């Protein structure tokens, strides 16, 4: 579809980004808890133009059996993108990128879930990216936390997630697709606000030590914003209109 032209202005003289946001402003975020009938827990998130659906099953029998652990339940995560979720049609088979993201999301959720009460079982988290627009892993992680809570899995805290980054020599919150492609750094952050624990952290791009510190802080602040929306989503399902849908 042709390379991106350098005419794209990532940050104009008034400090406004290419999609009209300020440097510390996240995209529009909408989270809904529940929605899937068959899943034990589910969530849907729209994070800018990202649209992601998450379903959680379990604790349930482990298949294949050799994966089970006699001391604790196990967590399994599959992050998957639909063929129509991106510009060029994506091959539906899992790519190396998707396998890696599945792993980092799993490791971001593990500190939150309490599975030792469910030995020999598995909790399966299925993440389906319906439309992708930069920052899917953060949006997916935030939605997965809500889906796990919706499934009634005991948790120490919810994991909130948001990316920070650098474009046009400025630290920005919530990197979009254009900024990811043309910007200088992208740092996805997963964070448990009540426990003050960062459970996901990646970076590609170049940051000075000062910028790095600022970037993490901006990312964590973004997570706190997302956290409120996650709580709101659960609240809307369980504490209004009598709850169960």
């Amino acid at each position, binding site marked *: 579809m042709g390379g991106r032209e350098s005419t794209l202005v990532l940050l104009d003289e008034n400090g406004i980004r290419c999609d009209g946001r300020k440097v510390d402003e996240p995209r529009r975020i909408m989270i809904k808890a529940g929605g899937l*009938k068959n899943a034990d827990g589910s969530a849907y998130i729209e994070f800018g133009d990202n649209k992601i659906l998450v379903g959680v099953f379990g604790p349930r029998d482990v298949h294949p059996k050799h994966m089970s652990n006699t001391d604790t339940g196990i967590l399994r995560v599959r992050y998957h993108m639909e063929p129509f979720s991106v510009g060029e049609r994506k091959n539906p088979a899992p790519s190396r990128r998707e396998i890696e993201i599945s792993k980092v999301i799993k490791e971001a959720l593990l500190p939150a879930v309490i599975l030792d009460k469910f030995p020999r079982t598995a909790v399966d988290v299925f993440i389906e990216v319906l439309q992708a627009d930069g920052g899917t892993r953060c949006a997916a992680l935030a939605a997965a936390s809500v889906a796990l809570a919706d499934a009634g899995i005991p948790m120490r805290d919810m994991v909130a997630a948001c990316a920070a980054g650098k474009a046009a020599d400025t630290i920005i919150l919530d990197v979009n697709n254009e900024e990811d492609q043309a910007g200088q750094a992208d740092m996805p952050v997963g964070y448990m606000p009540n426990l003050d624990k960062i459970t996901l952290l990646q970076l590609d791009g170049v940051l000075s030590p000062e910028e790095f510190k600022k970037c993490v802080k901006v990312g964590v602040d973004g997570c706190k914003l997302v956290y409120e929306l996650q709580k709101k989503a659960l609240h809307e399902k369980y504490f209004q209109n009598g709850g169960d849908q």
Partner: protein
Amino acid sequence: MAQHSVIDDLKKSKILELLDQGKRMDGRGLDEPRKVTVEVNAIPKANGSARVKLGDTETICGVKIQPDRPFPDMGDKGIFICTAELLPLSHPSVETGPPNPDVIELARVVDRGVRESHMVDVSELVIEKNKSVVGVFADIVVVDYDGNLFDACSYAATAALLNTKMPKWEMTDDGPTLVEGAESDLPTTTIPVSITMAKIGNHIVVDPNGDEWASMDCRVTITTDSDGNIVAMQKGGEDGFTLDEIIKCGDLSIKAGTQIRETLKNAVKAG
């Protein structure tokens, strides 16, 4: 969805008991499909898309259009391919990994219904004869299961294709080159609608839900086009239909198909 449980067996006797009185568990008439809700353009990044709910069964179809090489013996025709996939979040019994025969059948039946109706006019999808054509990929995913995936997937594909905007390419020395701002509607000729009917005992029900699907003896999916022709058919399941039953199914598919075609048309117009 071949998994059977004791619960299914218990439900089957109740379902049969009700059918003998001309009733269904969810209160529908025997020839009445569930409510179809269509949200077109649910995936703006796709060239066309639709999110369809058939009762509690929910599917999403995204259409992607890109230049492709023609098949060797069909240089004057574009490519249309339709796939369907059951996502693991749609039901606890769905596992990741290569598709099982049920899912392969699903994808092929849905593809056949749309293809055989000649809905997509592939002769209009040629960029340069024998060299380059337009490929239309309709990928369908099932996100929630409550029976009758055939029809839910078919409606999603149809609605998404009706909603598709096709970019334009021109042949240059570098191969097919995108012409900016020259989108047009995908050339379509008709609106195929599939109707699936299940035989439970000696009753025929239209649009079986999950419980009915688990209880049925056999099923038939019949696709009709806008002119009321039957364009594709697929029988499945371990029992058979009598000739009279099949003829009745044909009539049912035309009758129910007409209503659903209107629903799809209106949803695309409104979206």
